Every structure is written in structure tokens, then in C-alpha cells.
């Protein structure tokens, strides 16, 4: 896997497959990127489970916060790591000790740990590093274009409305 360049199909496939996302490094401050990403993903219909030892037992955006991945009482499809690159190593190992394994380990924009990625891929877990799932969802759905951001996506196909109004697009745009 080339972790400098991910194909749109690879990212789209992940975002279309996963349903349950554990977000490590969740924040209760709405001005923080991790809060914004959690809110955005929840609005898109993902079941986002916040992880933060300092907030364990509290509720965040209506969801119970857990101290660590092992405390989540059900399987998760993806672990999203909102910590620094060094911390991403042990968090990846925690994720890889879950049973069943998550399908995807996603490290946030600016977070990259190639050795951890190798350990995950050796166990058949897909890895994304140094990307933001909100930006990637916005890029592939077309939403991010509303903000004048270069989505690097060209298409002669109509974007698909997600329903519940006109200001949400889905990932199901024909390719």
C-alpha cells in the first residue's frame, strides 16, 4: 500500500463499508477538530464511539465515552486515531488486540506511523494515515466543493443528495 497516495476508490470503499467508528482522542470542546469530526461523522450516519480516559463514563454527543478501546462492549469496524504519530503506535496495538479485529485503522491528518501501519496490514487490517475522514467524505461526496476547496475530483455525473434536505451529499455518486 502506497501511504503517500490513496486512490479515491480505496478511500470510498472504506467510508462506504464501515458503520461503527471508535474515535480515540475525542474532545468535549466543540472548537476542537476531533469534536467537529465526530459530529460530522455522526451526522453522516456512522455510529461513532468516543474514546478518552479523562472523559470515561460521560456522554459526548449522546454517546458514552470509554477510557480505552478494550472497554467498548461490541465490535467496531474502524479505529480513528486523533492523537500524535508516536501515540498512534500503542493505540494501533490496542486495536489489533481486539476480538474481532477492526477492519480499518485510520490515522488523522498529520498523524503517521509506518511501523504501526505495517503491524496492522500484517493482520489484514486496512490502514489510512495522514488523512481526515471529514475531508475525504466531503471530497468524494462533493460537499467540500461548496467551500471552494480543490476536491481533485472531476465528474460528469450528478452528485447524489443524501436526503433530509438539500445540503447533504452521499458517497453513492456514480463513478
Amino acid at each position: 500500500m502506497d501511504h503517500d497516495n490513496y486512490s479515491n476508490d480505496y478511500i470510498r470503499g472504506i467510508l462506504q463499508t464501515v458503520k461503527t467508528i471508535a474515535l480515540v482522542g475525542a474532545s468535549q470542546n466543540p472548537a476542537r477538530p476531533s469534536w467537529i469530526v465526530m459530529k460530522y461523522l455522526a451526522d453522516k450516519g456512522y455510529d461513532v464511539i468516543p474514546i478518552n480516559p479523562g472523559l470515561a463514563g460521560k456522554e459526548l454527543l449522546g454517546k458514552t465515552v470509554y477510557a480505552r478501546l478494550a472497554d467498548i462492549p461490541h465490535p467496531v469496524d474502524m479505529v480513528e486515531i486523533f492523537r500524535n504519530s508516536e501515540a498512534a503506535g500503542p493505540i494501533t496495538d490496542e486495536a489489533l488486540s481486539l476480538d474481532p479485529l477492526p477492519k480499518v485503522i485510520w490515522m488523522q491528518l498529520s498523524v503517521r506511523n509506518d511501523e504501526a501501519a505495517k503491524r496492522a496490514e500484517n493482520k489484514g487490517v486496512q490502514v489510512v494515515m495522514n488523512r481526515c475522514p471529514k475531508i475525504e467524505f466531503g471530497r468524494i461526496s462533493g460537499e467540500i466543493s461548496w467551500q471552494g476547496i480543490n476536491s481533485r475530483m472531476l465528474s460528469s455525473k450528478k452528485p447524489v443528495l443524501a436526503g433530509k434536505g438539500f445540503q447533504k451529499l452521499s458517497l453513492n455518486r456514480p463513478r
Partner: protein
Amino acid sequence: MGERAPGFETLAIHAGAAPDAATGARATPIYQTTSFVFDDVDHAASLFGLQAFGNIYSRLGNPTNAVLEERVAALEGGTAALAVASGHAAEFLVFHTLLQPGDEFVAANKLYGGSINQFNHSYKNFGWNVVWADADDPASFEAAITPKTKAIFIESIANPGGVIVDIAAIAAIAKRHNIPLIVDNTMASPYLIRPFEFGADIVVHSATKFLGGHGNSIGGVIVDGGTFNFGGDDRYPMLSKPRPEYGGMVLGETFGNFGFAIACRVLGLRDLGPALSPFNAFMLLTGIETLPLRMQRHSDNALAVAEHLAGHGKVSWVSYPGLTSDRYHNLAKQYCPKGAGAVFTFGLKGGYEAGVKLVSNLKLFSHLANIGDTRSLVIHPASTTHRQLTDEQKVKAGAGPEVVRLSVGLEDKADLIDDLNQALDAA
């Protein structure tokens, strides 16, 4: 779409412009509306909090304008862009985002006259202090930098035409001092020069000129190269400090490599208000679809006209970097091998009087103060745009009494040469 990067001509037509999600309209619709209905109360809160992508109010963003923004961002190779009411508005919002009262910026001395006025006069009211450097001498930029310097500003192909600036050399100085380099790319357009490839951090456009290209709409664009780190210290508080108006959000951190464009939008455009009309955005977009074809023709015609004038008995000199004898020819080969643009100056042996007569006698060239139209344009700067300057200032600005500026259009070049011949005969 494969993963191969699309070509410039493809981006000029397709970037940002998928069919309309609601109606399937293939041309970009003109969303001539002030406001947009929220999907629900929670959605409204998310939009105002910058937590979701979407539209609120056309001063802050508009779907037609957004297509223009993404189009220009893609053509320049930037991460994001912001469309605004004019090229001047683009410059204003860029400096508003970068500078605090008492700060300085270093600017090339060869610029559009309007920018020189803006920097020398209006900006002083904000405590933004310009320090001039020699556009032909990169070392003079370095010498002008002080601890208060927050930006460097140059034009890629510089006014009043015929000047190619060594972008990479000035970018290297900017990098060494950890200062963003802003390049006004109006005269070149991204077809001829893409400043980000030479180390620029921010690009601005008067889209009124070659991007729109038809002389029918005023507009400006700011492009974020995504290359400059505005965090790390306190020099750029608009990007690196918590913003009270957004609940303490740090824009540079939250929006990463397109944070500058977002800050220009959610602080500058929101609070200062120079929004672009969606109708103008539509006109500019339509123009951009043919940008590659037009810029090539502009450059080819300009070269033919410049070559002709260089051999004309009443012409004392021609300043066009496309000419092999020109002092900027080597820089032109490095920065804009496809052509040196449409705009250049030449001198008349007959001086001021001959200049006035020439513009009066031309029949196809229009005498007006613009560049980058399909039509060929002419101006005698000493009697018009640079009239208020002293004689010494005029010469320094490349607008001496004998100087005529052309913006060569897309007509048959033989007709343009005929028109210049008959007007020169009468001058």
C-alpha cells in the same frame, strides 16, 4: 476518473463543475439568491460553527462562486480558493488575514498602478506599511525584510507589461525568512505561469482580466497554495490564535492546508463584505473554459505585433519578453515557455504628442484602462493612468511620456498590424 492527474485544458472545463445535484443542469447554474434554507436547526448550528460544509448566505459563499473557486484552485494547483468582488478585494482580504497594525510587507516596485495606490495610501490607514523592492533584483527584497515583515508581494508578469519576475529567487528568500510569498498572477494566468510550482504560497487574481477574458465582469480570486505553516508562532494570529467569534476555534489548525483560504472567507469576506455576484462568477467561469486557447492566441498575436513594432521606423523601443533580444527573454523561457502574455509597452520616437495622437488614430484598438479582453486595447499611461505622478515617477514606473501600452486581443494579427501602421503613419 483514473488517478492520472488531468491536463490543464480538462481542468479549465471540468474542475469544480459536476452537474447540479438538485436538477442535473449541466452548465453551472447561476444561484442568484441571497440565502439558503437550512436542512434543520442542528444543521444551521453546524454551518455557523464551521462544522459542516454548506451554504448559508451569499456574502459568505455561493454555489456558483464555489465552482469558480475550485476551478481556479485546480488550475493554479492550490488547495482552495476564494472568489471576491475584484482583484483589489482579493489583495485586501489577503493582507487583512496576514497583517496587524504596524506590520510591514515588501512589494515589488513594478506593479499594477492600482496596487501601488492601494499599498501607498489606503493601506496606511490600517497601519499596514509597504516597503518597496526592485522587481528586477531579488536581493533587494531580502534587504527590505525586517522583523515586522509579514509577507512579500510580486506580480509574475509585471505591469505595465513586458517584465518577468524571478519568482523562484524571491520565493527562496521568502522561505529563508519564513514569510509567505504572494504572487499576483493576473497577467500570466495559470496557463502561462503557475507560481506555486516556483515556491509561491498565495496567488491572487484580478479575474476581470484574462481568467474572465471578455471584458464583461469584475471579479477577484485568492488561491491558497497550502504550503505555508501559519502556526508555530504568533506572527499570524488570525490563523494561529483561538478566534472568539468561532468559539475559540484555531482556524489554521482546524482547516490545515486550506486554512488560509478559509480564514480569508470566514473572517475577511464575512466581516468586510466584498462578495462576488453569482452572475459575475458565471461569466468568469464561462471565460475560463477557453482560457488555454485564448492565452495561447493572446501570446502568439502579441509576439507578432511586438516583432512588427520592433522594426517600425517611428518606434524607438519595444519591451516584450517574447522577443529574443529582450532583457527578460531568458526569464520568459524559464517561467513562461508557451508565451509571454498579451500586454507590453513600446516607446515612440515622437514622445508625448505622438503617444496621444497614436491612441486617437487607432480604429480597432480601444483606448481604455483595462487589459485581458478579447479586443485589443491601448493606453498612453502618461496622459491617463499615470497622469497624477511626477515626470520622474512616471519614468520610474515605466510610464514615461513616450510609452504606449498594448493588451493584444484575439483578432486577426494582420488586422492589428495594419491598424497600428495606419495610426503610426498619422502620428
